[in-house]
């Protein structure tokens, strides 16, 4: 394979892996990497293999770009979809990201469950509620004819107040989760690989 063909193959792979970006963003990145390769190859002592080794595989390079864009978007976005995608990507980088992802799932799930409860109350008034009784604190939803409501002394306490209470708690959960995750996204940092093999001086810092 000729060097030109190798370079074009690498850039094609990079372009294909940079999905989810605008065409101009993507072409800008591909052009910058193309110029980087050309600049490095101007040095006769530099081999194409060394350049590719420095850049890493095309899909990994694209992944770093995409993680950056995704995390950046998640820091200002209020869309749970964007935030969850960023958290999921972060989760693939280690335990820290995994914890953030779990927080995201729990937070959003809590919010959604509260909102669902509020939504179901008008349709299943007898089976939706906050039941309190001796030796029991049971916040639950009972659905269907097969389920029986708890017998006295366990009783429902909220009545129709369940709807506003659940709406407020649900919205709060969603808002707090979003705020917390935006804050955490601001603390996202890359793991920085050092090109230690090609380097003689000690890498003093682990970033």
């Amino acid at each position: 394979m000729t060097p030109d063909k190798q370079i074009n193959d690498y850039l094609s792979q990079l372009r294909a892996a940079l999905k989810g970006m605008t065409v101009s963003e993507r072409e800008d990145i591909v052009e910058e990497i193309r110029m980087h390769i050309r600049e490095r190859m101007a040095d006769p002592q530099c081999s194409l293999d060394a350049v590719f080794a420095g850049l890493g595989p095309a899909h990994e390079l694209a992944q770093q770009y995409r993680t950056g864009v995704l995390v950046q978007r998640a820091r200002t976005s209020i869309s749970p979809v964007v935030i969850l995608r960023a958290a999921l990507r972060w989760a693939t980088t280690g335990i820290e990201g995994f914890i953030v992802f779990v927080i995201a799932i729990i937070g959003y799930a809590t919010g959604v469950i509260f909102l669902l409860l509020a939504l179901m109350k008008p349709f299943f008034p007898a089976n939706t509620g906050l039941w309190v009784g001796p030796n029991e604190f049971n916040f639950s939803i009972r659905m269907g004819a097969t389920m029986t409501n708890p017998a006295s002394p366990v009783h429902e306490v909220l009545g129709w107040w369940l709807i506003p209470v659940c709406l407020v708690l649900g919205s709060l959960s969603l808002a707090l989760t979003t705020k917390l995750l935006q804050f955490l996204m601001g603390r996202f940092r890359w793991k920085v690989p050092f090109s230690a093999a090609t380097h003689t001086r000690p890498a003093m810092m682990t970033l």
Partner: protein
Amino acid sequence: MRKGCLEMAVLASLWRGRLYGLEILRVLERDSSLVLSEGTIYPILNRLRTEGLVQSEWVEADAGHPRKYYELTGTGRDRATHMAEAWTQFSAALGCLIEPVLNGQRKVEQPQ
């Protein structure tokens, strides 16, 4: 390592003027022995740009091909300044902590 050290290094490398990717790598290596892989610097620059800390511009160079130059924005300068101050404080505090360690080492080297 304290968070943001890498951002600080990249922003600081641009303090004296605009540079393109490969130059930033060389400046970091020359001035701070920080060696980043080439595959690391470009995504970071892209992120700093989307954060509004640097801006980029394609410049037709003498080399016969264009280069993408990066330059600090006003926000980028502020951020670099704050980070540098925080870093200096952190480093001074750590200096106090490790001073006895260095002194202890000398004592071992020169037994009475």
